[in-house]
């Protein structure tokens, strides 16, 4: 089963992602901070990681930076999940090694699913 790790501190957002992704047959792992997210990623080796850029312990960019320096995550698709303006989000995700980003709030579930599926191909 394809596994997706969602690193998101807001329970409502994490729950929404869980419900939507689970309904499509993905196994969803949830972490509410960067430290838990990194630990879960190491233990479970997810197929895709969705990272909120605003996390309470260290921010999402830092977490992505840590992951990208670990050989086991060199090829794992990592997507930022952010409410930042498009321009800022685009340059941040590129600089920190994300494959792309998904905008908050989720306004279209089909579009969200299509984005996830595209990065899993």
């Amino acid at each position: 089963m394809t596994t997706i790790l969602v690193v998101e501190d807001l329970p409502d957002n994490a729950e929404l992602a869980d419900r939507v992704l689970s309904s499509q047959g993905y196994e969803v792992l949830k972490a509410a901070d960067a430290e838990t997210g990194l630990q879960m990623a190491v233990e479970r080796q997810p197929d895709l990681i969705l990272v909120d850029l605003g996390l309470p312990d260290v921010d999402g960019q830092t977490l992505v930076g840590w992951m990208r320096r670990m050989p086991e995550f060199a090829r794992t698709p990592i997507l930022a999940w952010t409410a930042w303006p498009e321009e800022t989000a685009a340059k941040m995700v590129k600089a920190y090694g994300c494959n792309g980003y998904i905008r908050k709030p989720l306004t279209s579930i089909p579009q969200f699913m299509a984005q996830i599926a595209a990065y899993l191909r």
Partner: protein
Amino acid sequence: MKITPATKASLGANPQFQLVPANRFTIEELTRAYNQTRVDYMVPMPMNVIRLTEYIHVYDVDLNYSLVALSSDQILGLGMLGIRPGRTWITRLGVLPVKRRQGVGRALMDMLLANSETLRAQVTTLEVIKNNIPAYNLFVRTGFKDVGELLVLRRPPGPPPHAPSGEPCWIERAEALALLERRRVPQSWITETGSLSNADDILGLTLDLADGSRGWLVFQQQKFRMFSVSLSRLILHTEQGDTLRLGRGLLAHLHQRYPSLDTHTENISFDDPHLPAFFEMGYLESFRRIEMYRQGAHNHRG
């Protein structure tokens, strides 16, 4: 627990909610409340207990004079007050999204300003994220005026784009803090010497260039679980000579020494002459704040 006269007068003043000193709550409760007030922010900057505790310490936030808006047992919003001699700083002000536009933010602001008067503050400052129009308007209505824009910058790990020039002299905390005292330009609360002297792991470097330019850089080597994870709180200062060339040199030496560390630094003034050097070194603008000030009734300098 101390209840200031101004705060005491407000208790029960509004039938919808009460303002109570923040020291009635645990740090866990304040952290949770703070995070909940910012869930819909474009740049939410959530915190955990460790980070809020550090924030309170570094920025001299006094929970006796900070406030929580309470209705029954529900926290509707909060606002914190940093206190230094003659000055106060309003920070972390926020209201739950569903409780906005009901006077909670205004009540918090009025009472934080009343507490500032009680403390005989000559000036109160704050920062608001640029484009947070409702908050900005609230601050204007409560008497604040713009000082200028402050940039929050990030730089991913990596070596500098070119080899640095000049021979740096790396310095320890005490010397670095002494250098900060040489600054003559007014600083934001976050970049004041008082903030850096409360922070751990402050270091610095001085640099002399062949053309006679001379200056220094003070920074924090931030740790997470005892490991160095990032550089932050960068303060650049040119004593003499070419500001841009010196800025390039200082930053290049910093990133050559710490190529694996992420960097984030706050409140670089929009007119800081070193700013172009940051961008040349690969810094990205995360967002901007607007710094604002309000003179208190105890300001006798006009």
